[in-house]
């Protein structure tokens, strides 16, 4: 190999950078965020359900809430009919009724994913 020292040094630096996430994380336990569903309102429910299905809410809650915001702000109505036919107020209070702690629900996943969300620039969080 010609100039082997320089080439291998460069290669080692490159491999060190690209494999950093692996040797940094290797073998570590990485618990997921586990948002808490242990609130009085949820515990009282016979069939635990949100506004829409769990699968849908996990992926789309931000779009749903943004849709509510547009509806309310444009005065097109403030009542949401879910796919199962239930009626909900398009309001944070609908969320807070069950998910009464922002810290133990919203923040868990948002911190895990480092989501930089604009909700709390205007809205206040629940008191509890």
């Amino acid at each position, binding site marked *: 190999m010609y100039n082997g020292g320089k080439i291998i040094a460069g290669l080692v630096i490159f491999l060190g950078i690209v494999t950093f996430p692996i040797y940094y994380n290797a073998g570590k336990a990485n618990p997921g965020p586990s948002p808490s569903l242990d609130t009085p309102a949820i515990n009282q429910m016979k069939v635990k359900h949100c506004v829409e299905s769990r699968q849908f809410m996990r992926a789309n809650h931000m779009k749903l809430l943004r849709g509510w915001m547009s509806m309310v702000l444009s005065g097109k109505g403030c009542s949401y009919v879910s796919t199962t036919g239930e009626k909900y107020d398009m309001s944070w209070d609908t969320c807070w009724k069950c998910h009464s702690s922002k810290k133990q629900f919203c923040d868990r996943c948002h911190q*895990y994913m*480092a989501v930089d969300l604009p909700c709390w620039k205007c809205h206040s969080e629940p008191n509890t």
Partner: protein
Amino acid sequence: MKALVPFLAVVFLVLLVIAGVKAAGLYFLFGVAVPYAAAAIFLLGFVYKVVKWGRTPVPFHIPTTCGQQKSLPWIKPNSIENPSGTGGVIMRMLLEVFLFRSLFKNRKTKIKGDYIAYSWAPWLWLSGMAFHWSFLLIVIRHLRFFFQSVPVPVQALEHLDSILNWGVPALYITDVIFLAAVTYLFLRRVTLAHLKAITLPADYFPLFLLFGIGASGALMRYHLRVDVVGVKELVMGLVSLHPAAVAGIGTIFYIHLFLISTLFAYFPWSKLVHAGGVFLSPTRNLSNNSRVVRHVNPWNYPVKVHTYAEYEDDFREKMKMAGLPVEKE
């Protein structure tokens, strides 16, 4: 035709995922096995390529230059365009790698009447810069999936990238630039006749693949949506070497992941490995010092020679008899 086959290849890859994940439910194969295999092929292939280049001799001293060489003390040398030492080479290499300086010098040549006119043609440079830099920022942004607590610089970059605050989830500026740049890089190959003529399927395939990656990523983020926490749990499992298939992530994620895996596995064997090759280009990594330091061709072997002195020794008597002059009596 040259573009159609690579296009169909990328379409086939997408259909393969849809069949494998949606129809057959091969979550472990597409979520764990394929990414691991792709990462292994990438790392080993990259090392193989670089070592292979390192073992290739450079017979001639061939730095490309376009500036004044270092010569007499009162002539000002251009140490970057015509590097005379390691410092200049490093400077030139850094400018090349980070700013694509040689592309920036591109000029368009045209015959106007009876003279030649040169004009500035920065479009390839501009789109190349836009593509590579936005791709780098997108890769760095994705590091939020690779660390349990997201590093602050990654968070800062994400904040900066979504600073327009358009829509929910917020639009990333780099996504727009990436897709626009790849689209432009494709269009220039199909609209300019002289470029179209020299474009091979191996030039189209990475463009379609990169567009597929960008488009599937954008579609996933802005429209179809997947359970992003599930995605991070899958990725954290992969990088902590405790892989486990995670249920409930949409097919679009597996399409995105499979196209990226394809890119990684394809990388070392294609033109994309210029990422490593640029550092090993003799035209770029040699300093122009061939008048100071002798470049020895590594191919050189001891050549069998027969000097004049030996020739004279062999034929001295005959030369004398023929009346030819000899150096040694």
